[in-house]
């Protein structure tokens, strides 16, 4: 059996064959040694190659990761969205505090109402009956930093009766509130952060973060083996992953460079990169990066990153002013900003805060007294102020006004602060007015209800005529549905809102006397004008010819035929010239029908042209921002106020007077019917087939243009007075309360004399009927009523006329 077995083995060996086997069988020790040596050599070479390969891969990976780390740290570390801020609210004695929504403004600015007036910390206000005390925060401004200020306001009915410094009792003329956030130009991740320097972060906050997130941060080299081991044991005991072993550096690396995926490869990369970060940069730089990077909450669709933004979001204050308890709360939410949100989960947040405070005490970072005081502090957080959405169209318009240098990349990463001209109170009123007016129109008229996906649209733009500042701009009914800005991008047939340019061309004395005065009569009889496209026969809206009508009547009732005839008299070229001078930039066709608005223009350029009239013939440049400031506080761009006289003040005043008539007696008289008092002028406009409804109206301080229509033009079924005017009224009532301030000033070269209605003759003593009218000096009527009366100083002759000549008029209307 044994032999047989041996033989079997030998046979098997033979079968496998090979010289070595045969050699072994030969049993020579030298051969064995050689064989072992060969084996060792092969193994060594293999190991060497493997080692070299692994080393190469490791070195390459390390170098790659190192490049990534350094590129990020030495380049732009954070993307910071540029913020757009409103014009500041200015409080002064006599201001209607209800009109400016004082309480709402304070709450939106993140001020918290306090139950005690004394002491009143910064960022709080106390409101008791007629007395309001406000501890305004310090804030940055392009011109200078405004320090914090403790003020007391005494309310007297609807107005601020007195404004005093609460500390000194000194009376104050005016106090600025910090500008409100209008919006921001976000990058793809929709992050908001306010970058802070580590020196500006209160030590409590740093201690709190280190206590709960990485207590050996100052001693480890990027990874903390003790912590990893501790976490490993804890997870083993728990049977699942309950603890992480990541240091702050690892967390930073993970947020900066890696995905949230949980794998060994990612973990190894994280550790390696953490070591590299620690090798290159000091602890302060790493800590600063961490404090600015860390995700800390959510405001709507905007992610709150960094302790600077979190301090504002949770407490409405600057990070430098955080208390110990507030610092602990910020450190507490790092673990789970949404699950531990003090707004949504106050109890969980408080428990976690107390845990942070306990850890701080246990680690000797705070003493017992501080701990007890902080734990006893109730959880108080600022109201979440949703980011305003109503100014999205304005943000787009502003971006287009910025020089090309400020592209999307710059605006979404550089953290610029853009001080805009927007008045958020007006902007909100405009948004509400557009929304409500459109809803009401759709309810009123079946033809205005949505057809498929197409809905009735509107736009509203409000300017300050003296400075051209855009105070409110709503480019459509819903930005989320359509970003097309109907105020700035749409060019629609102007209709009758264009007519004032024809009358201005007629009233303006350029070379020789003007073609018309306000006492002139116009012929509203059938008219036929030969054009290249055949004869053009304008018709009135009411399909009636009105015969001889006064200039006022023709414009107040928007008679097409009379205006077209005036256009022919002054010449279309001159009408084009006037429109362009006043601010219309779109090309205008030199055709007879231009006189009645056959031109496509944008609401914004129309607003500018009307602003020129309101501004006494001085054309302002459109201005959407004042300053662009970089994160270091340096002004990098400024848009100064610019204007230019393009029309004499007298003609501008005559045009204003005509347009006041439209509001007082004409197609826009619904404005007076709605109870809006004071100086208001404007013009309605309806394009062919009732497709576009316009109203351009102004007061001495505000120009507001409204357009209503469908994007794909179709009939609205009614004229502007029933569509655009109600929207205008809704807005103006909201912003003025129905009482318009100021007056349209009559310049010295305009005389006010009585004329006989119907004939336009100068009404002297004995004239049976008369009404006052305005004329450029030297253009008063020659004809008198009664006819035998001598030409004198007119009804204001004698001492009255002499005084007027001496002092240059000066009455207000």
């Amino acid at each position, binding site marked *: 059996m044994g032999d047989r077995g041996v033989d079997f083995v030998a046979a098997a060996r033979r079968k496998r064959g090979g010289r070595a086997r045969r050699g072994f069988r030969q049993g020579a020790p030298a051969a064995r040694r050689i064989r072992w040596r060969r084996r060792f050599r092969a193994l060594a070479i293999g190991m060497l190659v493997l080692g070299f390969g692994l080393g190469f891969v490791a070195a390459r990976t390390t170098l790659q990761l190192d490049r990534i780390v350094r590129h990020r740290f030495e380049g732009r570390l954070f993307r910071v969205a540029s913020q757009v801020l409103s*014009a*500041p609210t*200015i409080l*002064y*004695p*006599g*201001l209607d505090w209800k009109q400016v929504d004082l309480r709402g403004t304070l709450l939106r600015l993140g001020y918290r109402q306090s139950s005690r007036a004394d002491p009143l910390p910064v960022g709080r206000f106390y409101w008791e009956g007629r007395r309001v005390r406000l501890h305004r925060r310090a804030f940055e*401004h*392009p*011109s*200078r930093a405004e320090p914090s200020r403790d003020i007391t306001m005494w309310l007297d009915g609807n*107005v601020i009766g007195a404004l005093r410094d609460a500390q000194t009792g000194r009376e104050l*003329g*005016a106090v*600025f509130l910090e500008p409100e956030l209008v919006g921001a130009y976000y990058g793809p991740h929709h992050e908001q952060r306010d970058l802070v320097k580590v020196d500006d972060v209160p030590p409590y906050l740093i201690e709190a973060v280190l206590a709960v997130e990485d207590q050996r941060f100052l001693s480890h080299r990027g990874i903390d083996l003790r912590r990893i081991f501790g976490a490993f044991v804890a997870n083993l005991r728990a049977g699942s992953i309950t603890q992480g072993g990541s240091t702050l550096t690892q967390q930073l690396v993970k947020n900066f460079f890696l995905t949230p995926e949980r794998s060994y490869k990612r973990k190894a990369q994280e550790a390696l990169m953490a070591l590299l970060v620690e090798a290159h940069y000091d602890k302060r730089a790493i800590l600063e990066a961490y404090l600015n990077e860390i995700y800390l909450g959510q405001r709507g669709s905007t992610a709150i990153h960094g302790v600077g933004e979190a301090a504002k979001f949770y407490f409405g204050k600057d990070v430098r002013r955080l208390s110990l308890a507030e610092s602990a709360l910020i450190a507490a939410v790092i673990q789970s900003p949404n699950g531990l949100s003090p707004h949504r989960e106050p109890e969980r947040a408080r428990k976690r805060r107390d845990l942070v405070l306990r850890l701080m005490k246990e680690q000797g970072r705070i003493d017992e007294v501080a701990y007890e005081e902080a734990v006893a502090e109730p959880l108080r957080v600022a109201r979440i102020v949703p980011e305003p959405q109503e100014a999205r169209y304005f943000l787009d318009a502003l971006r287009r006004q910025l020089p090309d240098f400020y592209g999307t990349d710059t605006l979404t990463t550089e953290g610029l602060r853009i001080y805009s001209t927007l008045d958020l109170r007006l902007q909100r009123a405009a948004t509400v007015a557009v929304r409500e007016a459109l809803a009401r129109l759709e309810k009123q008229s079946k033809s205005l209800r949505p057809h498929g996906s197409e809905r009735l649209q509107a736009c509203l733009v409000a300017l*300050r*005529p*003296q*400075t051209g500042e855009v105070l409110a701009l709503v480019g459509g009914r819903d930005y989320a549905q359509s970003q097309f800005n109907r105020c700035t991008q749409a060019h629609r047939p102007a209709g009758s809102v264009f007519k004032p340019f024809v009358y201005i061309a007629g009233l303006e004395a350029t070379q020789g006397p003007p073609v018309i005065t306000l006492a002139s009569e116009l012929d509203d009889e059938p008219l036929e004008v030969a054009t290249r496209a055949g004869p053009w026969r304008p018709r009135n809206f009411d399909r009636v010819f009105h015969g001889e009508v006064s200039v006022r009547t023709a414009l107040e009732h928007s008679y097409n035929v009379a205006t077209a005839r005036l256009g022919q008299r002054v010449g279309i070229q001159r009408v084009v010239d006037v429109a362009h001078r006043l601010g219309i930039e779109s090309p205008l066709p030199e055709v007879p029908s231009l006189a009645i608005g056959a031109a496509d223009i944008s609401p914004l350029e129309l607003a500018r042209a009307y602003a020129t009239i309101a501004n*006494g*013939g*001085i054309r302002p440049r459109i201005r959407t921002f*004042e300053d662009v400031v970089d994160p270091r506080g340096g*002004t990098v761009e400024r848009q100064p*106020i*610019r*204007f*230019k*006289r393009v029309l004499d*003040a007298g003609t501008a005043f005559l045009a204003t007077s005509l347009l006041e008539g439209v509001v007082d007696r004409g197609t826009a008289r619904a404005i007076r019917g709605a109870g809006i008092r004071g100086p208001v002028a404007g013009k309605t406009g309806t394009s062919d087939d009732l497709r576009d409804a316009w109203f351009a109206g102004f007061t*001495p*301080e505000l120009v507001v243009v409204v357009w209503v229509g469908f994007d794909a033009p179709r009939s609205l079924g009614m004229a502007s007075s029933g569509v655009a005017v109600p929207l205008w009224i809704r807005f103006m009532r909201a912003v003025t309360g129905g009482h318009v*301030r*100021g*007056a349209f*000033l*009559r*310049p*010295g070269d305009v005389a006010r004399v009585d004329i006989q209605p119907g004939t336009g003759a100068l009404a002297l003593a004995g004239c049976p009927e008369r009404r006052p009218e305005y004329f450029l000096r030297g253009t008063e009527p020659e004809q008198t009523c009664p006819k035998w009366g001598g030409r004198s100083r007119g009804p204001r002759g004698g001492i009255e006329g002499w005084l007027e000549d001496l002092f*240059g*008029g*000066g*009455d*207000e209307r």
Partner: protein
Amino acid sequence: MNTRVVRWVVQGILLLGLAAAGCATFGPPGDSFSIAAEAQYGDPARRASTRLLLRGLKADESWHFREAVVLYERALQVDPTNPWAYLCRARFEVAQGDPERALDYLDKVEALLPSEPGAAGARAHLAGLRGTALAILGYTSRAEPLLAAAKRGAPRKWADGQLDASELQ
């Protein structure tokens, strides 16, 4: 005797005081015009706006030009029809060597001036600033009569041929 001398001295002082007060009251209107005085007039918005101008002039005087411009603009925000805001800005532009822009602002003052109580006092400064702007632009013949009118209307303030921020306060 002594009593009589004292009486004469006192009477003399009183007379001199009265004369000084009379000069101040009935002196050239341009010299008595001040933004501080105008801050007493108008509705609340006008008064607040004019007070902001005073702050602007102070900043202007102490060479904080950027702050001055912002305060002038804030004054316009509160009351865009305040002629003194344009007057202050026109003075600023002349001082900064931008005569064309100054003339634009002066146009605006002219348009708003008729209804103002302080118009008579401001006209001398208007003439002076316009004259200075025109002189910078090289229109000497047009500038001279205006500057002369300024010196007539406000001999003290225009004695050196220019209007400082402090002289408008």
